[in-house]
């Protein structure tokens, strides 16, 4: 499953990427395999999403979330 499939309040551990060239910025912000990510909430119009990773809030679009493979925890 990907990060897109997690509901607000759920968390997952990143296992990898579905794409070979996801945005570099995602990695630099700490979205790497092994990191635990919590979906905090969705924006009012349903996209983007507010994540908590490595102790801070990061916002990404569902499109990017769909590239990130996770395992629910």
């Amino acid at each position, binding site marked *: 499953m990907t990060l897109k499939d997690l509901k607000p309040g759920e968390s997952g551990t990143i296992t990898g990427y579905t794409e*070979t*060239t996801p*945005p*570099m*910025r*995602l*990695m*630099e*912000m*700490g979205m*790497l*395999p*092994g990191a635990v990510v*919590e979906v*905090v*909430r969705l*924006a*009012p*119009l*349903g*996209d*983007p999403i*507010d994540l908590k990773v*490595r*102790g*801070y*809030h*990061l*916002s*990404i*679009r569902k*499109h*990017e979330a769909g590239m990130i493979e996770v395992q629910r925890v």
Partner: protein
Amino acid sequence: MPAPDSSASLTEAPARLRRIALAGNPNVGKTTVFNLLTGLRQKVANYPGVTVERKSGRLVGAEPAEVIDLPGTYSLNPKSLDEQIAYDMLVGRIEGERSPDVVVCVADASNLERNLFLVTQVMDLGLPTVVALNMMDAAEAAGLRIDTESLSRALGLPVVPMVAAQGKGLEELRAAVLNLPEPPTPRRWTLMDVVDARVRELTEVLADAAPDLPEAHRFSEVLHALAEDKALEYWETRAPAFKQAVEQARQTLNERNVPYRFAEVMGRYNWLTPLVAQLVTRHKDPSERTWSDKIDAVVTHRVGGPLIFIVTLALIFQAVFTWATPAMDLIEASMMALGTLVRDLLPAGAVTDLLVEGVIAGVGNVLVFLPQILLLFFFLGLMEDTGYMARTAFIMDRVMNKVGLSGGSVVPLLSSFACAIPGIMAARTLDNERDRLITIMVAPLMSCSARLPIYTLFIAAFIPAGVLFGFVGYQGLAMFSMYLMGIVMAFVAAWILKKFVIKGASSYFVMELPPYRMPKIKHVLWRMVERSKIFVMRAGKIIFGLSIVLWFLASYPKVGPSPEFEAQQAAVETQRQVSLDQIAAARGVTAETFMALDPVVAAMQFQEAGAAARLDSLRALYPNQVAGALSVYEVEQQYQAELQQITDAEDGYRIRNSIIGWMGRILEPVMQPLGFDWKISAGIVTAFAAREVIVSTLGILYSVGEVDETSIALRDQLKADRYPDGRPVYTALVAVSLLVFFVFALQCMSTLAIARRETNSWFWPAVMWLYMTGLAYLFSLIVYQGGKALGLG
């Protein structure tokens, strides 16, 4: 960019500490630390060729050292223009700038792991580095305890815990910096083996291909070039052999399925994550909701979020437009007074005219927007410092994404409602070059405050004051439509530009939502002043110069006195004399009676209390003389009025024969299909410098002297103007056509100049001007011809 020349500072330790650069992620308190280190001795300039602010100041204390506040950056592999500057500064790749002698890497203690990512990158540049571990208070509040000594040992760098907002840790930081720490050992982390081998090879290739590049920078350059195409392109002409080698390495790694693009990031985090886990102890359950989380639950709520956003916007607009008015009036009045003063002090002549009508009026045109700009910058600063700015992007991203932009464009576009210049400048925070360019290209479609005078004049003159449904005024509705038209067109243009014109990497949206913080008003005010200064200097220079040119165009060639007007003047003169003689003959009024009455009549003219009573008592005494004197007064009044009319007509005649008038008449056939006569065309020509100039041009053309948009006289003149065949020049349809023209047309030199600086070419400003003028023409044509076809003309 010139060949890097920073080797000197790297091989031989500087005798003295001269340059200190502050690097760090956005929002970690760099500027706060900068203010602490420099006191108020700082100056803001620009980096050559771009409008990124270069903030520098002198270190407080004996050492004559320069402190530089770099733009915030998440990584040294740059994505945005801001980040590019930060990196180029650190490696000394900017014209006239040497690498710093010491880097102070400001890190947010409450968000240690991600902040240390950048620290490890900075370390690899081999520059002496101090870590300012800021926001220790926030870390404490979040229940984090950090073992700073062990951190210092692990990094091999001095680490100074700080609470910059309260001035804590300043002395320790100063001491650490002045102590000039040893350059760190780079690469405490490890790269995966396969990639590491390639990187070593490539480093050698680069050393041969670009011998000027300092050894310490090679490693970072290789990593960047391997991971990002943009970084690789940099070497295309500078070191083609290296570029080729990188491409080959990429191919080999690809074939073996090695995720080389992420090797660097993974290597760094793999080293950092266990380190941070070891050094940071938690006293609180990390899943506990913080204050910031609770605020977000409201501010980004499904219903509450958009509502709060709209209310905030409405309040800001209300403030920008209403609070600024008294100050704007004051500035206008002062400039007018200054003009009068200069006229009184200097002898009449071309130089004085130029000074008053060109220079002072031109400077006034810029300064008059200052109150709005200041207010706007104040509110934007407040939004930035509280952390609300990021939320507006979060809330609006979905909408913006529909037209191909991202949430990051919200603020630049909103700023453009006050003025496109700060709007375009704000776009440089966008980390996608394509998004930034598109945002710049559509920002001038937002109705800026310079359009307001034109909207006001024509709406007040030609849109009926009636009310729809009992509460929506036609005029208000018309005003609202102007704004709406601009917004809709900006979205359409963005979509078209994205789809067909501006190619580039597809955008993504990865944005930090920083915790809410209490803003420091002093800080916000300070930045407001700084940014406004930049605006005034930049826009000022251009408008200043252009106003002078415009003045020449409107004043030359000077036509000699026309016999026609001289004859008219003589006729009026004769008429007056005849009338006066007639009165004298009929009433036997002597000059003395008139003299006696003069003050009373003057009083009546100014509607002074008691004047009528005084006149009545005089009338009782000398009925005949009083009646006669009043007739004399009337004749004088009429004479003055007629004389004024002739002077005004003469001004109009002069303008018609000036270069501008000539341009207006040349343009008339082109503008005719839009319903514009030569005067409007001339106004549009002058409005090219700055839109609001059209109001004063029309004022001159319609010979009503000094006017502003609220002038009743100008409104009446416009309504009364007729073509030779008796048709009115302005109908409501012409007015709407003109309004539409002003919504779309790019009539602002300053915007073009800023766009040139921000895009570093004349190409995009040219495209901008052409497409906006094209839109203006097209839509005015549709409105006017369509309206006529429907019988509205």
